[in-house]
């Protein structure tokens, strides 16, 4: 049976891990198969969980989050017959499939939408913590904003430095209000549970917000401009479908492969005008074809635009 291990944020984080869970569940619903799933409670359990699953014969073993990278690198060689899949990190081992997402591309698209939806020419970004992953989101977003409106301003904030940074909706809401008062009228939240506060404050203030990872449009219908979706669920689903035949190596989930994108559904249909949609779809095509290169913060630890 396949297995999945969630990162410390927990299975129901409303974004990343939850998407992974949804993918696994979809597989189970469709195939009637069963899978093991683990939630850890400490760093030391990463290795423990991996080994125990491998020894119990689970195959493949999927894990979410870059934090597993280091451990997987040491554990994978011990279980050459087991296939592993890691999301958000590259681990070069013969039995590991690494799945990374081009969050900068998805963020670029929602950045364009934000710039086009903005009346003030100022948009906001609220990240959970100042870590590379979040900078990657931010950098793609800013590029998209500038692409759609070179004169636009982007206000960037981070919510904190403690684990509470991801679970503090009050702080998220204050930051959103603060950004609104500085003119932002579309705010992109990449901050886990804190993001809920951002979305809610934006709705209260009558401005727009952008969700992240999962499609969060439904949370405040008509108030969430769109969501930058990262199809973690798809990659988990695919890994489970592949089963023991899982193909090791690097898989990049990008716009072209619909690994990332923006969400359009009945909750935000009214907010996305045909022109906006056209512009974004054009950009999507150009990015897919390589005509537009969205800079990846991780490539050189810098962002060309602020």
């Amino acid at each position, binding site marked *: 049976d396949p297995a999945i291990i969630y990162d410390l944020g927990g299975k129901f984080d409303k974004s990343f891990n939850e998407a992974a869970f949804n993918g696994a569940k979809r597989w189970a619903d469709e195939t009637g198969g069963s899978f093991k799933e683990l*939630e*850890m*409670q400490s760093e*030391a*359990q990463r*290795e423990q969980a991996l*080994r125990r699953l491998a020894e119990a014969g689970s195959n493949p073993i999927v894990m979410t989050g870059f*934090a597993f990278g*280091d451990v997987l690198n040491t554990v994978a060689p011990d279980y050459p017959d087991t296939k592993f899949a890691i999301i958000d990190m590259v681990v070069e081992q013969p039995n590991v499939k690494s799945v990374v997402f081009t969050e900068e591309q998805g963020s670029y698209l929602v950045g364009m939408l934000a710039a086009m939806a903005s009346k003030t020419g100022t948009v906001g970004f609220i990240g959970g913590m100042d870590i590379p992953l979040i900078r990657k989101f931010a950098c793609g977003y800013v590029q998209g904003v500038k692409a759609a409106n070179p004169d636009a301003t982007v206000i960037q904030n981070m919510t904190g430095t403690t684990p509470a940074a991801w679970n503090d909706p009050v702080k998220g809401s204050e930051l959103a209000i603060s950004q609104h008062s500085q003119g932002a009228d579309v705010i992109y939240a990449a901050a886990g549970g804190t993001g809920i506060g951002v979305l809610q404050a934006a709705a209260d203030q009558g401005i727009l917000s952008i969700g992240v990872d999962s499609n969060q449009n439904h949370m405040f219908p008509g108030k969430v401009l769109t969501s930058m979706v990262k199809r973690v669920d798809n990659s988990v689903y695919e890994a489970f479908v592949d089963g023991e035949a899982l193909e090791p190596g690097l898989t990049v989930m990008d716009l072209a492969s619909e690994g990332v994108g923006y969400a359009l559904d009945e909750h935000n249909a009214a907010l996305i005008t045909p022109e906006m949609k056209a512009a974004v779809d054009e950009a999507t095509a150009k990015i897919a074809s390589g005509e537009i290169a969205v800079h990846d913060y991780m490539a050189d*630890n810098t962002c060309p635009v602020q």
Partner: protein
Amino acid sequence: MTKMPRWADVALIPLLNLVIAFAISGLVILAIGENPWTALKIMVSGALGSSYGWGFTLYYATSFIFTGLAVAVANHAGLFNIGGEGQATLGGLGVAMVCLALPWPHWSLALLAASLGAAAFGAAWAAIPAWLQAKRGSHIVITTIMFNFIAFSLLNYLLVNVLRPVGSMDPASARFPEGAALPTLNDMAAGLGFVWGRNTPANVSLFLALLCCLGVWAIIWKTRLGYQIRAFGKSEPAAVYAGISPVRITMYAMLISGGLAGMMAVNNVMGEAERLVLNAVEGAGFIGIAVALMGRSHPFGVLLASLLFGFLYQGGGELALWTTIPRELITVIQALVILFTGALDNMVRAPVERLFAGRGAR
């Protein structure tokens, strides 16, 4: 009236307390629709039933011993150090800087240097609140809380901008060199020719922790410094009368306390992760408060309480891993254990004492 026998005091009552705590935990488990008996079995066998379980239990206990001792030493000086979390965070920084500085030829050298680094950084982080308390009367409870937050910010900055290897997604330092890898208990057992606790993180720093227990015991009860710390903790005016300098003792006690908290990093950063990650402390600083209070600030008590919490952590981890019981249940069990063995002790003690008194009277 006869007094309660000593065995009842030190064994029976804590046991009864634990039983009540677990009984109520069982009710909670029932309430969320699971089987408490199975849960208990998983916890006990997962944490104590194999050398594998022990390997984790001891690993967690090691961390708690360090932070528990830290709080205990400060308690003896009448200072409430809530800053273990921050001090251990800085300790991790010290360990990382030492380990990454050289290609260490042998783990023992690395261990020595890293312990010093960890203790020095932890102590330094405690030194400022201590100095402010001693010289300016700034309440150490506030300042240590503040320093926890500041430590997190500092570490966040350093990991992302300074220590992170280029191109790494993970806000963590590089892996430590091979030579800085501490032998695990498993390695040590293998050296002695038997298999114990394969793939478990318990490592040689357990012995360091035990040494610290012994050291703290000796310092507190056998040395002049300890004498002065205890005197100061009991009565500041009297200490001044006896020629004990409040400033000096506050500083010494907090430096020792911060150093101990910092040394926790030797276990988790150097012994387990072998690199420094964000939030490496994972709340062990706060658990240290519970451990020290439950252990009545005595090193032996701290050791026992640490083992209990190590058991809860590992047993609870197993529970969360292998059942659908959410991991937060462990937090609830911990809370109940703290409550009944620590705060509601007299609820059990009084009736038991009466029972013994009644028997004695007859």
